[in-house]
C-alpha cells in the first residue's frame, strides 16, 4: 500500500494586488503505485511546479488531499526527496558535505554517513570530488550532486522539477540514463517534470499531459520506453516509429493548447 494518492486536489492562488484568482490546479486525481515512474508534461503555467510543491509539502492545497502510504501530506518530509531545476546546493559546503547534509541533520554516525556518501558519489559518477567546492562543478555535475544528496536520504518518492532543463544535449542524455538506472536499481517512485516531450516519453512509465486554466491532467499515457531504455540505447529508442508517433501526437496537443492560450490572451 505504498502508494501516492491524490484526491480532488485543488489549488487556487489569489493575487492580493489585482484581486484576481488563478486556478493553478483543479480536481487532480491519480494514484501512483510504489516504484512507478511518472513524467509530467505541459505548457508553461499549467501547474506542474505547483503540483510538485504540493506533493513535497511546501504548499498546502486549497482543498483535497494528497497522501503517501495512507498518511496525508501536510508538510515537507524526508520520505519525499526533491531535486530542483538548479541544484539549490549549499555553496558554502564541499560536495561530500552537501551530500551528507540530510544525514548530519539526523545525527547519523559519521562513519556510516561517510560510507553512504562515498557509495552515492560513486553511483552518480563523482567519486573523488568529495572535497571540491560545489561552485567549481559543471552544471551536470551539480545536478548529480543534487540527485545524490536526495538519494542518500533514502526517500520513498523522488520529486524532480525540470532537473535536466539547464543541461546540454549530451550531458542530458547521460543523466537520463542515470535516472533510469537509479529507478531500476532502487525501485523508487519517481515523478519527473520536464519541458521536453522526448524526455517525458523516455523517462515516463506513465505520462501526464497537463493543460492550463484551470490546471488539470489533460491526457494520460502508459508507455513502454522507460523499460526499453534500461536495455537499449536511448538514441535507438528515439528512432522507433511508435516513439515518433506518440511524440508527434503530444506535440500537436501541446501546440494546440498554446495556440488556445495565445488566442485567449
Amino acid at each position, binding site marked *: 500500500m505504498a502508494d501516492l494518492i491524490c484526491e480532488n486536489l485543488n489549488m487556487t492562488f489569489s493575487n492580493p494586488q489585482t484581486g484576481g484568482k488563478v486556478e493553478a490546479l483543479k480536481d487532480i486525481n491519480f494514484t501512483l503505485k510504489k516504484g512507478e515512474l511518472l513524467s509530467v508534461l505541459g505548457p508553461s503555467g499549467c501547474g506542474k511546479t505547483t503540483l510538485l510543491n504540493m506533493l*513535497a509539502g*511546501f504548499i498546502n492545497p486549497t482543498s483535497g488531499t494528497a497522501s503517501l502510504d495512507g498518511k496525508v501530506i501536510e508538510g*515537507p518530509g*524526508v520520505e519525499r526527496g526533491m531535486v530542483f531545476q538548479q541544484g539549490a546546493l549549499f555553496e558554502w559546503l564541499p560536495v561530500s558535505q552537501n551530500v551528507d547534509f540530510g544525514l548530519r541533520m539526523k545525527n547519523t554516525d559519521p562513519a556510516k554517513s561517510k560510507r553512504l556518501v562515498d557509495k552515492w558519489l560513486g553511483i552518480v559518477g563523482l567519486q573523488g570530488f568529495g572535497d571540491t567546492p560545489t*561552485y567549481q562543478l559543471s552544471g551536470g555535475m551539480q545536478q548529480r550532486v543534487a540527485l545524490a544528496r536526495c538519494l542518500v536520504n533514502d526517500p520513498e518518492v523522488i520529486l524532480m522539477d525540470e532537473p535536466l532543463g539547464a543541461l546540454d544535449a549530451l550531458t542530458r542524455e547521460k543523466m537520463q540514463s542515470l535516472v533510469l538506472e537509479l529507478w531500476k536499481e532502487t525501485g523508487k517512485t519517481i515523478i519527473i517534470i520536464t519541458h521536453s516531450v522526448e524526455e517525458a516519453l523516455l523517462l515516463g512509465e506513465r505520462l501526464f499531459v497537463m493543460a492550463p486554466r484551470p490546471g488539470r491532467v489533460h491526457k494520460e499515457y502508459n508507455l513502454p520506453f522507460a523499460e526499453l531504455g534500461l536495455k537499449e540505447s536511448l538514441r535507438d529508442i528515439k528512432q522507433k516509429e511508435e516513439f515518433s508517433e506518440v511524440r508527434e501526437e503530444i506535440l500537436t496537443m501541446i501546440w494546440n493548447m498554446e495556440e488556445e492560450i495565445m488566442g485567449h490572451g
Partner: protein
Amino acid sequence: MGELLSYNRAYIAAFIIIVLVAMFVISVVVGRKETAQRDKDEVFGDPERTRGGWYWSACGVATLLLVWFYFSWGVGRAYFPEAANEMCQVAKLEEVVSPIKAALPIGSRYFKSTLLVARNTDQLDELVTQVPSDVFSPDEQDELRNIIGDQRQLMANSSDPTQLSAQTSSELNALVGKISLLADKLKSDPTSLKPTEEALAQPKWGLSIIEIPVLPTTSRGVLFDTVAGEAADITTLFNKIRNHPVQNDRIISDVKQRIQNLKTATESDDFDAAAIVQRNKYIKSVERIFKRLDDGTIFPARALEEVNGAIANLDAAKDHARGGLAWIESLFFPGQGVVKSRTQCTEQGSARWLPKPTDVVAEFLTLSNPDIEAGGGYKGIPLFWWKWLPLQDVVGFFVPDSIADIWPGEYAQLGPDGTITPSFKDDLLAFARGEAYLGAIPMLDGHLWDSLFRVLVALALGILLGVPLGLFMGVSRFFKSFFDPLIELYRPVPPLAWAPLILTIFGITDDGKIFLLFMVAFAIMVISARTGASGTQLSKIRASHSLGASTSQIMRYVILPNAMPEILTGVRIAIGVCWGTLVAAEILAGTTGIGFIENIARTVSDYELIWVTILIMGILGLMFDIIMRWVIARTIPWRGKG
C-alpha cells in the same frame, strides 16, 4: 641608542632625504624606460594598463615624503641646522625695531603723524556738527566751537617744520646718528664674535618644547643678538621723543582751563540728570582728542624723513649681514620664517602645524616606550604594553555577590571569646567581591589597548546579539515587525548625538563608551544579518526541509552561512564606524585611549603628538581592513558563486 638617534635627528634626516631623492630619480628613470618600452609594444590598447608598477609607487612615496620634509622645514633643518637659530636672532632685531618702523612709511606706508592728524580732523569735523544745543547755552556752544578750532590750530603748529623745537630736533638727530652707528656695526665682520657657553649648551633645534634655541650659537647670530640689544635702547629713546612747539604751550594750558570751566558749570548748575549725562559725554569726547594732542606725538613729516632713511639704511645693513641666510631662508623655509615672540622663537607657516617626519617618529618612539620612568608612554600609561592583572579583579567583576547570600549557612559572627571564625560562606563572599588573592594573569595594557579593547568588546557584543536577532528578523515576520521600530528609531541618530547622553549616564569609564559603540555595532550587525538572511533562496530552504532539517537546523546550517557574506561586510563596516565613534567619544570624555591623547595634545598645541595619534589611527584602521579582507577571502570564498 634612542637618545643618540634623537639627538642626531638632523643628520638622520639629511641621510634619509638623500635616499628619497635618489629613490625619486631612479624610479622616474625606470618608470620612463618601462613606459617607453610598452609604448613600442602596444598597438591597440595596453592590456596591462590597470596594473601599476613598483617604480611609480616608489616615486609616489618618495614625492610624498619629500614634500612633507620640505614643508615641515625638515630639509632646511637637515642641511642647515643652525639656520633657525640665526633666523631667530634676525627676528629679534626685527621685533625690536618694529615700533619705530610702525611710525614710519617703511613699516606702515604712512607716517604715524599723518594718520593721527587725519583721524583727529575727522573726529573734530564730526564733533562740530554735533554740539548739543539743548543742554549747552549759546555762549557755551560758541566756547566749544572755539575749543575745537584751537585744537585744529594745535595740529597745524605740530605739523609745521619751522616750529619744530630745537630740543626735539636735536633728539631726532641723535637718534639718526645712533641708528647709523648700529647699521655700521651690522656691516662689520662678525667672525671674531663667539657664542657663550650657555648658548652652546642649549638643546638643539627640535629637541625641546620651545623648539628653536633662543640664544645665538653662531658668530653671525651673536652679531645680530648684540645689535638687537642696542636697538632696544634706541627704540626706547624714539618712544620718548615728543614734539611740543612753543606756540602750543599757551594754547594747551588755555584749552585745559576752558574745558575745566565747562565741567565745573555742569556740576554747579542745576541741570537734570539726563542733561548732565549728555553734557559730560560731549565734553569727554572733546577732551579725549585734546589729550592726544597734548601728548605731542605729531611730528612734521620732514622732521622724520631722516629717521625713515636711517631705518632703511639699517634694513640694508641687515640684509647685507644676513648674506647667504636670506637665500637659504627663501629656498628651504617656506612660510613666514621665524618669529620672535616675548620669550621664544617660533616657526611660522606650514612648519608650525606640520611637524618634521623625524620628529614624528621620535615622538612615536617616546610614546611607545613602555618604560614610564624613562619618560615613555603618556600621562603615566604606556601606549601598548602588558601588565599583571590580578585575577580577583576579573572574578569580582563577573561573579555577583548574591551568590554568597544564596549559599546555605550563616555568615560568621563575633564569638563569645572575641574571635571570628570565617565560614565557607564568608570565603565565598570574599571571592565574589574580588578580595581573595587568586594570582595574576598577564594582560595587555596601554592607551592603544584601551581603545582597541573598547572597540573589540563592543563589536563582540554587537555581533553576538545583533547577528542572531538579524537572522530571526530576516526569516520571521514577528521578529521583523516587532524589533524594526526599535532599531529604526535609534539607528538614524548619529552615534555622536547619543554620546553626551550615554557618557553622562555611564560616566567616563569604559562602560559608557562600550555601550555607545555597542549601539553602533548592534544596529549595523542586525541590518546586515537581516539582509543576508532574507536573501536566502527559497529553494535552499525547501531543499533542506526535504532533507529533514528542523527549523533551528535550517537557521544554523543554511540561513547563517548564507548570510555570512553580508555579516562579514557588516563587521567590516562596523569596525570602521566604531573606530571613528570611539575616537570622538574619547575626545569628549576619557582618561585613556588614543582619542584622549589627541585631545590633550590639541589643548597644548602639541602638533607632533596630534600627528602621531592621527597616523596611529590611520594605520590601525588600515590594519583592521586588511585583516577583515583576509578573513573574508578565507571564510567565504564561495561568495556570489552559488
